[in-house]
């Protein structure tokens, strides 16, 4: 049994907070998520019981931190079915993707090589590749989306060529919430000798992820979108690729030795990518968040989200002032507009009713030409979202035409 009441009681942000005088209805989980007490406790424990730096000393405290840090890496590795040495801690998805683009892309791409993206990618999986293309002379190409906005393997088959060296795509897209068949894309990509880089920011928090099964070469995700702290994320890479990838930052903790003649030898992955004192509280908080999700079960979370999504869509379809952009998407992301209301005005009205949704282009600016609108609203659900939350959203949609109420009521 999915015990929603118990789950909600684990989150201090859900203990009866209000926004604009209404009970808080948080539907912006694709942007960030609330944190359960277990995560806060893990962070506090590091600062109250065993504060010390990792990999640094010869005394018990630092040894404790080393052990916990190592255990956390193992927790992350198990979570995505990777090996521990394939898990690099970063500040989040953006940094992870930049590390691949600069550390691998800038080193190996040449003039005339091709990087394939889609119009649905988040800026974090677009702009680093633009930069690398500029640096190396490689070209950016786009795999066309189908009429609904989906990326299919057929579409990649039509686009990929012998010149393609990188395919960089999101597992679940952040605006439309479609789940991409990464396994099939990876297989095809590898047939052409290219690598596939997966943006897992919107997928890893919601879907059981198995990097071995997907056979992706790199996978990036963030802690804060899966109930962990901000400022911590992960780059997974196949070990042989990580060995070939250059470190993005150099400094303490990532070199084995260096001398005054400039001879440097770096540590092996993942440590060679982790220069400087790491975000230790973030790493420990991330591991606590993963354990929390595993305890509930990723499959249970996914089916709870699915149930709510189906309910929300069926209710929204009853309203004739709602335009839905991704009715058939798999993820708990609902992208819509109210007819005749600019997205930002609608979002402000929702705010006045205590409902937090995102308006805008959701950092996927090139998608808007595809959708034919300058902006959309996005409601996104997670493990603690309730049917009552969805009802509050529906109710706000019904009255959203009077959006100036936000200023005058």
């Amino acid at each position, binding site marked *: 049994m999915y015990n929603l009441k118990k789950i909600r009681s684990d989150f201090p942000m859900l203990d009866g907070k209000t926004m604009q005088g209404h009970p808080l209805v948080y539907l912006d989980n694709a942007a960030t998520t609330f944190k359960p007490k277990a995560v806060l406790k893990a962070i506090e424990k590091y600062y109250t019981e065993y504060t010390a730096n990792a990999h640094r000393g010869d005394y018990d405290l630092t040894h404790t931190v080393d052990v916990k840090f190592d255990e956390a890496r193992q927790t992350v590795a198990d979570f995505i079915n990777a090996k521990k040495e394939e898990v690099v801690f970063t500040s989040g998805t953006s940094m992870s993707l930049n590390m691949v683009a600069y550390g691998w892309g800038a080193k190996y791409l040449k003039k005339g090589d091709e990087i394939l993206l889609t119009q649905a990618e988040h800026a974090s999986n677009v702009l680093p590749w633009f930069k690398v293309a500029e640096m190396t002379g490689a070209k950016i190409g786009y795999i066309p989306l189908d009429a609904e906005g989906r990326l299919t393997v057929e579409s990649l088959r039509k686009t990929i060529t012998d010149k393609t060296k990188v395919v960089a795509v999101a597992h679940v897209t952040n605006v439309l919430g479609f789940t991409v068949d990464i396994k099939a894309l990876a297989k095809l990509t590898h047939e052409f000798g290219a690598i596939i880089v997966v943006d897992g920011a919107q997928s890893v928090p919601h879907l059981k992820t198995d990097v071995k099964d997907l056979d992706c070469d790199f996978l990036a995700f963030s802690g804060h979108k899966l109930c962990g702290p901000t400022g911590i994320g992960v780059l997974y890479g196949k070990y042989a690729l990580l060995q070939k990838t250059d470190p993005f930052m150099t400094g303490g903790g990532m070199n084995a030795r260096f001398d005054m003649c400039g001879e440097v030898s770096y540590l092996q992955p993942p440590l060679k990518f982790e220069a400087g004192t790491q975000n230790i509280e973030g790493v420990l908080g991330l591991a606590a968040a993963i354990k929390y999700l595993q305890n509930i079960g990723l499959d249970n979370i996914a089916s709870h989200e699915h149930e709510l999504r189906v309910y929300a869509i069926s209710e929204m379809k009853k309203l004739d002032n709602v335009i839905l952009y991704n009715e058939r998407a798999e993820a708990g992301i609902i992208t819509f507009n109210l007819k005749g209301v*600019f*997205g*930002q*005005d609608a979002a*402000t009205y929702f*705010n*006045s009713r205590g409902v937090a949704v995102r*308006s*805008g*282009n959701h950092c996927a600016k090139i998608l808007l030409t595809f959708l034919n609108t*300058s*902006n959309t609203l996005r409601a996104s659900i997670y493990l603690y979202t309730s049917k009552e939350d969805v009802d509050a959203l529906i109710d706000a949609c019904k009255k959203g035409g009077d*959006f*100036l109420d*936000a*200023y*005058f009521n």
Partner: protein
Amino acid sequence: MPTLINPQMMRQVIMDHYEHPRNKRIPKDDRYLKIHMDSASCIDDIYVYLLVENGIIKDCCFDGVACTISTASASIMTELVMGKTLKDALYIIKQYTAMIHEEKYDDSVLDEAIVFMNTAKQAARIKCATIGWDGLEELIHESEGEKHDHR
């Protein structure tokens, strides 16, 4: 504008300026000063244009994609400053900005712009209510010869 204005009238004024924005056009005259205002925190993406002759605002217009609050406030602004001296225009901008931030202001020069007096209720929209005005202020300084670096 009557001194006693009720919320219903205020809403009508905002909607009227949103649906029928005044001076929303791109001038075809290269003597206009122009500024691009966009915001990382929202979608508003507008251009403000200003033509000054002998210290008087000869024309002020805007264009772009923006929400109700920024469109209507820019529309009202263009009407308000048309034909004013730069000094008077700056005074109006200052009063408007003070009103938006819930500080003391002189409402005698704001006319229809007082419909935005409740903006602070939706703090995330303060930027929208001021984006056109901030642009105009920079253009006025530019025309006065003090080149301000715009972000």
